[in-house]
C-alpha cells in the first residue's frame, strides 16, 4: 500500500538565448502576508512513451490545484497561452509566457511502462529567463501518480517560498453523519486534498480524535467499543488495531505519539480527576506525569520530544501549560481573556496552535511557545481541534454549525489567517490530524 517514489535530479536545460530584464526574484515570503498571488502556468504534462494525454492533463491539474489553493499562487488558464509546451526537451519561448504575465512556468512529462510511472518536471523563472533549480524525475508505480504530482508541487512551492512543502501528505479524521443526538462517527484517511479516501473503522462504536504517528504508518485514537473510552493503535496499512491497556482507571483518551513514535502521551481519569500519563508502546509500562486535583488533558509533544504542552483548569479555567516530557513543574503560557484548550505544538517548534473560547465564540489561534504574540486566526460558533501541516504553515481544524441541524466540516487556514477554505469530505468531518510529508 505504501507507494515508494524515487527522485533524481536532471541537468539544467540550456538557458534561452534571449535573456529578459530581471523583474525581481521568483520568490514569495509567506510571513509577509502576501496580497498578490504569484501568477503561474502549468501546461498539461507531455505524454511520452505509453502514457496518455489524459494522464498528462491530470498531473498538471493536481499540481495547479495544490499551488493555487495555498492562496499564494494564481494559475493562468490554458485558454490564455500564446505558445504551448508539446515537447518536454524544447526551449521555452520566454516572451510568450511573459506576455501573459506568467512569472513561473511548470512543465512536465509522463512515461508509463506497464505498472511503472515516470514523471519529470522543470520550473522556469520567466522573468529571469532561466530554470529555477534542477528538473526532477520521479519514478514509481502508476497508483502513485497523485503523490508524484504533489511532489512536483512541493518542489515548486519550496523553491519559490523557501519553505518546505506540504502537499504529499495525508489527513486522518473522523467522518460523521446524522443529527447531533444520533451522530455516527468512523475514522477515515485521505490525501490532504481529499482524494483517495478510505475508511478505517465502521460506525458501530464512537471514535474520537485520531492522531498520526511521526512516520504516518499508525494512528492513535479513542474508541468507546468496550463501553468506556480507551486508546487504540491502528496500523494504517493493514487496518489492524489493538488496545493500549492502561491498568488503573476506566477512562483514557486524548493520545498523541512522541516524535520518535515509541511513546504515547495521553489523559486518564481516575475517580474524579483527569491527569496526563505516558506509556512506552513496546513494554506497555505507563508513567504518571501530573497529579494536580485539577483536570489536565490534551497533551502534545514538542518536535524535539523534550517538552509537552497541555491544558489544565488548575487556575480555575482551561489554560495552556508547558512541562518537561518527564513531568514536573509546569509553566503557564496562556494569559488572555477566555479559555484555552487542544494545544498542538507546530512541527517547526516555534508556535503552539489552540482552541480559544471567549465571549461565546470559538477561535483557532496560535502563540509562541513562551505565550507571546497570540493571534486568533478564525472565529465562529464552534471552531476546534487544530492540526499542523507538515511545514507548519497551514492549520486544519473543524467547524461545527449552530443549532439542531448543526454539522461539522473540516477547514484549513494559513497561519497568517488568510485563505480560510473548507476541505471537502463525503460526510461531515472533525478531529483532523495531518501526517508528515510522505517519503
Amino acid at each position: 500500500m505504501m507507494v515508494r517514489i524515487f527522485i533524481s535530479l536532471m541537468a539544467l536545460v540550456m538557458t534561452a538565448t534571449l535573456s529578459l530584464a530581471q523583474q525581481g526574484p521568483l520568490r514569495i515570503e509567506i510571513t509577509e502576508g502576501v496580497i498578490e498571488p504569484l501568477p503561474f502556468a502549468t501546461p498539461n504534462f507531455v505524454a511520452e512513451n505509453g502514457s496518455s494525454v489524459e494522464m498528462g492533463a491530470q498531473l498538471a491539474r493536481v499540481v495547479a490545484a495544490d499551488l493555487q489553493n495555498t492562496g499564494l499562487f494564481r494559475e493562468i488558464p490554458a485558454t490564455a497561452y500564446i505558445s504551448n509546451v508539446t515537447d518536454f526537451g524544447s526551449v521555452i519561448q520566454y516572451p510568450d509566457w511573459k506576455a501573459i504575465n506568467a512569472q513561473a512556468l511548470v512543465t512536465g512529462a509522463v512515461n508509463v511502462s506497464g505498472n511503472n510511472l515516470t514523471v519529470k518536471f522543470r520550473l522556469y523563472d520567466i522573468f529571469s529567463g532561466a530554470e529555477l533549480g534542477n528538473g526532477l524525475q520521479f519514478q514509481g508505480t502508476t497508483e502513485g501518480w497523485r503523490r508524484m504530482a504533489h511532489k512536483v508541487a512541493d518542489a515548486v512551492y519550496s523553491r519559490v517560498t523557501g519553505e518546505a512543502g506540504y502537499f504529499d501528505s495525508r489527513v486522518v479524521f473522523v467522518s460523521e453523519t446524522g443529527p447531533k443526538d444520533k451522530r455516527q462517527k468512523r475514522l477515515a484517511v485521505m490525501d490532504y486534498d481529499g482524494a483517495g479516501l478510505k475508511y478505517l473503522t465502521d460506525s458501530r462504536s464512537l471514535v474520537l480524535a485520531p492522531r498520526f504517528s511521526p512516520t504516518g504508518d499508525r494512528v492513535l485514537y479513542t474508541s468507546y467499543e468496550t463501553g468506556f473510552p480507551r486508546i487504540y493503535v491502528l496500523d494504517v496499512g493493514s487496518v489492524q488495531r489493538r488496545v493500549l491497556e492502561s491498568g488503573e482507571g476506566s477512562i483514557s483518551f486524548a493520545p498523541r505519539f512522541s516524535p520518535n513514535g515509541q511513546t504515547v502521551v495521553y489523559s486518564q481519569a481516575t475517580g474524579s480527576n483527569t491527569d496526563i500519563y505516558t506509556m512506552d508502546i513496546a513494554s506497555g509500562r505507563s508513567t504518571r506525569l501530573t497529579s494536580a486535583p485539577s483536570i489536565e488533558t490534551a497533551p502534545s509533544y514538542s518536535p524535539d520530544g523534550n517538552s509537552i504542552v497541555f491544558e489544565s483548569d488548575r487556575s480555575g479555567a482551561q489554560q495552556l501549560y508547558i512541562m518537561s516530557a518527564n513531568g514536573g513543574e509546569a509553566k503557564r503560557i496562556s494569559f488572555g481573556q477566555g479559555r484555552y484548550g487542544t494545544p498542538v505544538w507546530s512541527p517547526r517548534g516555534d508556535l503552539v496552535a489552540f482552541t480559544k473560547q471567549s465571549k461565546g465564540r470559538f477561535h483557532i489561534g496560535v502563540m509562541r511557545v513562551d505565550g507571546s504574540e497570540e493571534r486568533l486566526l478564525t472565529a465562529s460558533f464552534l471552531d476546534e481541534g487544530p492540526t499542523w501541516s507538515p511545514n507548519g504553515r497551514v492549520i486544519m481544524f473543524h467547524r461545527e454549525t449552530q443549532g439542531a441541524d448543526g454539522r461539522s466540516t473540516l477547514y484549513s487556514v494559513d497561519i497568517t489567517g488568510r485563505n480560510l477554505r473548507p476541505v471537502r469530505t463525503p460526510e461531515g468531518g472533525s478531529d483532523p490530524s495531518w501526517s508528515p510529508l510522505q517519503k
Partner: protein
Amino acid sequence: MKLTIKVILMMGALSMAACTNAGKLGGGAGDGAFDPNAAGNSSVIAGSASDPATTAYFQQAVGDRVTFEVDQSLLTAVGRATLDGQAIWLLANADYTAIIEGHADEQGTREYNIALGNRRADAARSYLVSKGVPSSRMQIVSYGKERPIEICSEEACYAKNRRAVTVLAGGLTG
C-alpha cells in the same frame, strides 16, 4: 412531592408487593391510594413502570439523572434529592448494578468535556457511596459532549445535556 416519593418507596421496600395502582407515579389509572397490604395482587404488569423493582420505575418515578450548572460538577440541592431516591432504590434492589454516565454540553472542547463529564459522574457516584451504596456496584463513564439528548444550541437544551445519568444493569425484570 419529595416526601410523598420517599414514603412510597419505603412502603415498596417493606412490603415487596406490587401495588394495585401507581397513582400519580406509574401512569396507571386510579384514585391514588397505595395499599401496602395488597400482597399478591396480580393486576400490576410486571416490568412496567408501576412495578417499583424495574428500570422503568427507576427512570420515571425515582429519576435517573441529575443536572449541573455550566462548567460545574457540584451537585445541586435538587440533584442531591434525586440521588437520595436513587440510593434508597439501589439499596432496596440489590440485584442491580449501575453505570453512571457523565455528560457535558457542546460549549467546550472535546477532551475537556470528557474530563468534565467524568467529574460529574464521579460526583454522583461519590454521593451514592456516601448514602451507603457499595462502590463495587457502580462504575462511571464519561461521554463528554458526544451524546446530547437535546440538540438546540441554547441554554434550554444545554441545561438538559449537562447531566449524570444512572444506567441500571442486571435485575430480575430488566
